[in-house]
């Protein structure tokens, strides 16, 4: 499978501040790739470099087989972008902005446009000045999603959307994936990334800390096990990979690394399980572990 985005050693300074520090990122064609990081970690800066809006100080930035800076205009015919902070021309109507951005990109699909207006419940006749934040976001989303392009760069696209619209957005992204399009989805909303993305890159302080499928990152996380047994076996707290053991009577709660699961479950099984709940690891925990355990 070919590479839609390939960034190697990208560095960008703003004066004395180093915004991106030798960042590597690879997005395969046809995948929905999550780009996770807290505020100010460099997500938007990376996207701006990808779009040729700002220039890399060092590193190689390729997308769709071209150079992000020198081939910017030609590449932009093949991609659509939703900025993180959507500002629209206050005197133009929403419909005018959607059509303008679509035409400048090389045309948009009118059927898809009206279908998206319907699905996102946007009134296109209002002046942009009067739109709420969520409605401005919808304008940018519709302008992007109605274009027939290969790559979608979405910077925190659901900020300001209500839960219903968020669900609509997720449906749209799934349709894009089914249609073989590539999506780079920057976000700090972990459930969104978890629900949509094939692979995830975690960025922190301008560098990608970890890239992989969500499944492959589970090793960083712990499953929370709650169980009731007939007779509590001794020494569970000393088992490798088993942490935070709390025993009250014949109830036990513990958080368990993947490597500790077989041992613990065997021991509990031998003790006669009467009830068992296991909570799967979430990306929140994965995130926390990155930021708490590896101070930089």
């Amino acid at each position, binding site marked *: 499978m070919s590479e839609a985005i390939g960034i190697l050693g990208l560095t960008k300074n703003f004066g004395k501040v180093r915004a991106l520090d030798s960042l590597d990122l690879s997005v395969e064609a046809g995948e929905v790739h999550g780009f996770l990081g807290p505020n100010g970690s460099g997500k938007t800066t990376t996207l*701006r470099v990808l*779009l*040729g*809006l*700002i*220039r890399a100080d060092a590193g190689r930035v390729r997308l769709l087989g071209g150079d992000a800076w020198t081939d*910017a*205009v*030609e590449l*932009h*015919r093949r*991609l659509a*972008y939703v*900025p993180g*902070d*959507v*500002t*629209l*021309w*206050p*005197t*133009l*109507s*929403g*419909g*005018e*902005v*959607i*059509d*303008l*951005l679509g*035409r*400048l*990109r*090389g045309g948009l699909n009118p059927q898809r446009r009206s279908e998206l207006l319907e699905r996102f419940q946007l009134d*296109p*006749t*209002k*002046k942009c*000045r*009067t739109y709420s934040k969520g409605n401005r976001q919808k304008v*940018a989303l519709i302008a992007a999603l109605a274009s027939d392009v290969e790559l979608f*760069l979405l910077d925190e696209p659901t900020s300001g959307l209500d839960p219903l619209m968020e669900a609509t957005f997720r449906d749209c992204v799934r349709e894009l994936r089914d249609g073989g399009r590539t999506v780079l989805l920057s976000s700090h909303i972990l459930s969104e990334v978890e629900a949509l993305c094939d692979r995830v890159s975690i960025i922190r302080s301008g560098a990608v800390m970890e890239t992989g499928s969500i499944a492959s990152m589970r090793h960083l996380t712990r499953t929370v096990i709650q169980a009731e047994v007939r007779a509590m076996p001794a020494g569970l707290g000393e088992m490798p990979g088993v942490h935070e053991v709390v025993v009250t009577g014949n109830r036990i709660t513990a958080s368990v690394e993947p490597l500790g699961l077989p041992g613990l479950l065997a021991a509990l099984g031998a003790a006669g399980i009467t009830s068992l709940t296991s909570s799967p690891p979430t990306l929140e925990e994965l995130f926390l572990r990155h930021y708490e355990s590896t101070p930089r």
Partner: protein
Amino acid sequence: MSNDLRSTGNLVRLALRRDRFLLPGSVLGFAAIAASSATATAGLYPDPTSRIAAAGAVNASAAIVAMYGRIYDPTSLGALAMFKPAVFGAVALAILMVIVVIRHTRAEEESGRLELVGAGVVGRAAPLAAALIVAVSASAVIGAATAAGLLASGLPPAGSLAFGAGWAVTGVCFAGLAAVTAQVATGSRAASGLALSGVGLAYVLRAVGDLSEAGPGWLSWLSPIGWNQQVRAFAGDHWVVLALPLAAATATMAAAFVLRRRRDLGSGLLSERSGPATGRLGTPLALAWRLQGPTLAAWTIVLGLLGTVLGTIAHTVVDLLDSPGMKAIIQQLGGSQGLTDAFLAAEMGLFGTIVAAYGIVAVSRLRSEESAGHAEALLSTAVSRGRMLAAHCGVALAGVAWLLFVAGVGAGTGHGLAVGDPGQIATVAIAAIARIPAAWVLVALAVFVWGVWPRAGAGVWLAYIAFILAGEFGSLWGVPQAIMNLSPFVHSPLLPGPDQNLDGILWLTAVAGAFLASGAVAFRRRDLTP
């Protein structure tokens, strides 16, 4: 204190913090210009005889009277020294006050910042009150500093005080006007445009009124800028006239507070209409035209009117010369046609300067599009930086050419009808067109500065003001000719008239081209800078 005004003090502090360079710089600038003019004039005209001759020449020249007004006491050193700074400063102060008031009221609303502020324990009218307090205080300080500067340069105390007070109340008066337009218009650009048209109207009314002493001299009395001159500092000090701008300011400010209470945050008195559900815009140029067209239309009306009015009165300048000796001299200098031509050429220079300001405003749209994030949306589509630049640049360059053409045709038509010579339309229009390249240089300079230092747009306005000051006061202050030659305005041919040297046009166009090209190259290499 009423609840409506709660937290005004905090907002005043916020405004002063934001204007911490603009306001002190303005105080120094106004005081320094006034004081240096006074000192320089005292050196040039040490005795009453020389002053009477100079004042006589000023009052005899219609072009000068239209531009700056009359000298009401030919023996007075102060009146001679300050007749130019008086009107120049009044207009500049009026513009400054419009900027200050709109910046802290309507522009804050539009940006959404006032929503954040208004959610605090802040009275509904507090932002307006704070903006007016800042504007009125700034006017007062500028007036006081100016009076002190004039006093220090040796002018009489009463006149110095009257002059400073005249400027101060003019500033206050236009702050009141801006407070009203901030409530009426639907956005900050429209509010500034409306208020600045008021400044322009006040200037033109005064120009026409001052010219026609026998005719509608009362027109000057409709204009706050005319009031400033009728204070007649150093020429009788008519203190009573100060009451007129103060009364006007009180009325407009009261009206602004009433209007503010009647409207919602973010809306004007006119409600927002819906737009089309689908758009026809499909190119960067169409977008630039859509964004800039209304501004250009407003400028077209203003310059068309201004041109027509000044063109219509141009031929009357000869009648102003009642002394037969003077007439004889004028005849030798090229006859009454020469005098009329000199007047028209001076007006074309004025148009060129005004239209250059439009050009800078039009280019500044590039910067506001960039800082608002609109450029990001545009450039993430298949639009190159060159196309985006070319679109707004094209509007600015074509707009400048169009406005000077309109002003020239207006003036030519007015003059041609008045003297019954249709040929004048072409002559005067060509004279206006000859001013285009100088204004283009300012447009190109603005593009260059934006391309290289995107955050330094204010520098272009400083250069613009410096060029005007060099033209108006350069020789008075003894500025070396080499430095005055930096101003593009001095290189335009003085048409209509015998000046047939068109080299300046070629040079100006070449300089503009060089600035444009290097600005475009710089923009294509730099980061987009919010």
